[in-house]
């Protein structure tokens, strides 16, 4: 997992979508979200640090498996595909501009 940052991003997205899909299960008498072990699920996506999920506010979901040294290593992980990094930084800037515009419009 310490090879490519794309793994970490995809993994955290997958974690969020998995927990949400589990929460919306039709047979909810068997698949209870409160029985779900978030640490176990995070391990299965090979995550050391877990993103916060709005829907599950109030349930104990703060999970950090890694030691501080490992977290430092994680921050240093880069994209294997350099184009991807550029794409993402561009997208972030675009989103910022959009939200600025919206802010002005709502104030006018």
């Amino acid at each position, binding site marked *: 997992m310490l090879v490519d940052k794309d*793994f970490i991003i*995809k993994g955290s997205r997958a974690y969020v979508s*998995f927990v949400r*899909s589990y929460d919306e299960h*039709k047979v909810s008498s*068997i*698949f209870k979200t409160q029985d779900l*072990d978030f640490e176990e699920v995070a391990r*299965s*996506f090979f995550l050391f640090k877990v993103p916060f999920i709005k829907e599950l506010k109030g349930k104990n979901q703060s999970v950090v498996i890694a030691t501080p040294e490992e977290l430092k290593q994680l921050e240093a992980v880069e994209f294997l595909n350099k184009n991807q990094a550029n794409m993402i930084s561009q997208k972030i800037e675009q989103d910022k501009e959009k939200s600025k515009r919206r802010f002005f419009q709502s104030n006018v």
Partner: protein
Amino acid sequence: MGFFWLTVKKKGDNQHEVPKGLENSYIKCDSRLQKLFLLMKLIFKNKGKKIIVFFNTCHEVSFYHKLFSRWIGDRSQVYGKLQVQKITGNMDQTKRVNNLNAFSLAESGIMVATDVIARGIDFDHVDLIVQVDVPQDPSFYIHRIGRTARKGLEGHAILLLNKNEADYVDYMGEKQIPLQELSDSEVTKFKPAELT
């Protein structure tokens, strides 16, 4: 004017019929990580065959597709040129068709998929179906396992269950879909250390 009797019957209790050549089984796992190890073992054991792996969401599929294709690509002396395809709802139509054709024409391969191909799509001789996530809608279980054992051929469907999801077997039993625990000791009693 004569009378006539009109009888109303309940529309077949056996609405969803399981195909005859299908072996329908499940494995109990201790954790979600062990599900993945079991999946790797199943892929290793059936590397000359066609496998479909079902997940519930698109993001899960794109993550595990990347993971498996890297894992298999790094071990080409073991797996040969085993192909891993993916199909999700948020891909382009052309890409989807390409991946579908590549999988259905190949003699062996792995397809990582969401419920988009759970119904209505006909592949030639798929040997094994692994469900890592339990389907959100129970009726999709039948659609998913219907991808194998077509045209009188034999097939195998395996559901991976977590220990806290074990009641699902009884639930499916009530819906007249019997599930047996997999008796293959080679798969169920292995240690993750054997994989690498």
